[in-house]
């Protein structure tokens, strides 16, 4: 907050002018984490509901993306740690007050389950796949009966993973743009929406495609409401938040926000999905891909813009 006419900073090249310490790996990871959470949530949900035959794409095909997304995200995350050899310190303690500690432990549980889930469905997706080794088949038939159990575990875990990607940022009250309670639910909804978009891409029937089209439409609507609430929250907040929101409402991120996130990432794909559900010939991949790009843009915008907002100087 600049109450002074002129204020000198620190003029130390390695500390100031901007403490922009989170670079592209962080938003990429937040996007991929949310995406994996979305995919696994739907796979688990429809398994628990016993609708496996109706949505084979969401249960067998889409979850193949999840472990890849998690691993790429984790590699990106490791890349951004500056003291990476000590990363194991995350697992020598449980810090309930730290969202990052929550994330580390949830990923510890999610990553192996996502691999197992993909593994037990792999031969159904690729029928010609031959493991060659007997013990791999044994492993497969060992884990198959536990599918429902895995689904029950994935339901809460994927929600926590999805919401944590937002709470990670919103827990920092020093960065006023991040410090709002709606960011967690917003990132969760966006993650579920990108998961539904992958399910549209991997849908095996028009029933499945339309089902996830409807789900995605609902999620996009909720997301738009959350964004409106978030903006209203900034305007009714303290001075630092009113200043922070100027970045999105007239400042340097305005065009990016309204073009790539609001228009191309939410409203336009929603309109296309409505047309598709009404029976118009729309290539269903287009809204799905737009939702995915919009979801990634939202993470990049929030991480980049948030780091500029601050209390002093």
């Amino acid at each position, binding site marked *: *907050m600049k*109450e*002074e*006419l*002129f*204020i*000198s*900073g*620190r003029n*130390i*090249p*390695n*500390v*100031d002018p901007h*403490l922009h*310490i*989170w670079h592209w790996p962080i938003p990429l990871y937040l996007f991929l984490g949310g995406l994996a959470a979305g995919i696994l949530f739907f796979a688990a949900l429809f398994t628990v509901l016993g609708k496996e035959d109706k949505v084979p794409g969401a249960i067998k095909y889409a979850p193949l993306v999840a472990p890849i997304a998690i691993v790429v995200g984790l590699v990106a995350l490791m890349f*951004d*740690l*500056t*003291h*990476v050899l*000590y*990363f194991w*310190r*995350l697992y*020598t*303690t449980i*810090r309930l*007050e*730290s*969202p*990052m*500690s929550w*994330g*580390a432990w949830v990923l510890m549980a999610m990553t192996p389950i996502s691999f197992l889930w993909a593994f037990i469905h792999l031969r159904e997706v690729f029928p010609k796949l031959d493991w060659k080794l007997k013990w791999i088949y044994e492993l497969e038939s060992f884990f198959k009966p536990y599918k429902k159990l895995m689904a029950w575990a994935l339901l809460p875990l994927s929600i926590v993973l999805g919401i944590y990607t937002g709470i990670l940022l919103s*827990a*920092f*009250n*020093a*960065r006023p743009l991040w410090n709002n309670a709606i960011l967690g639910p917003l990132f969760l909804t966006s993650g579920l929406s990108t998961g539904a978009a992958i399910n549209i891409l991997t849908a095996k029937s028009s029933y499945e495609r339309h089902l996830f089209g409807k789900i995605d439409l609902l999620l996009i609507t909720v997301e738009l409401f959350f964004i409106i609430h978030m903006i209203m929250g900034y305007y009714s907040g*303290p001075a*630092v938040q009113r200043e922070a929101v100027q970045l999105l409402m007239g400042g340097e991120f305005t065009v990016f926000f309204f073009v790539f996130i609001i228009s191309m990432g939410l409203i336009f794909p929603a309109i296309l999905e409505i047309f598709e559900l009404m029976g118009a010939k729309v290539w269903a991949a287009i809204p799905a891909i737009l939702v995915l790009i919009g979801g990634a843009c939202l993470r990049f915008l929030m991480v980049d813009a948030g*780091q500029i907002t*601050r*209390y*002093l*100087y």
Partner: protein
Amino acid sequence: MRYAMVIDTLKCVGCSDCVVACQTENDVPIGYCRDWVVEAVAGKYPLVEIELRSERCNHCSNAPCVRCCPTGASHIVEGGIVLVTANECIGCGACIESCPYDARYTHPEGYVDKCTFCYHRVKKGELPACVSVCPTKCMYFGDLDDESSEVSELLKKRKHKVLAPEAGTKPNVYYLI
């Protein structure tokens, strides 16, 4: 025990001796600093006023950096001093993002570093390096829980402020104004 620093902005001349003393005492790598001097000009010509203040980690009583640290590397020791254990720090940057005073930086060796209130000196009963060298004697260090300490007396007598109180961190560096 609650260690606090009181800095008289009316006596500070902005010489940056505190910065150099800290860099020397704590082997701060070149191009980095744990404390710095801010020159704030406010008002409208001809009624302008200048405030000089030496800033550093505020060793907050409600420290957001300690709360968000995923490994417990950032912690609070005796007297409320906030420290970082280098070989527990993974360099995730969460504490840097959480600090409203931007008092932390990534050390070239990878871990996060910041002002320690010269804990190694304070333990021996000495003053922090910055306080001990100040040529105008505008910096004071002591225990706020002790009613008769120099810092408590100063805060009773003089008008003072803390930085960004609205951030809710309960900082322990006070500025006499």
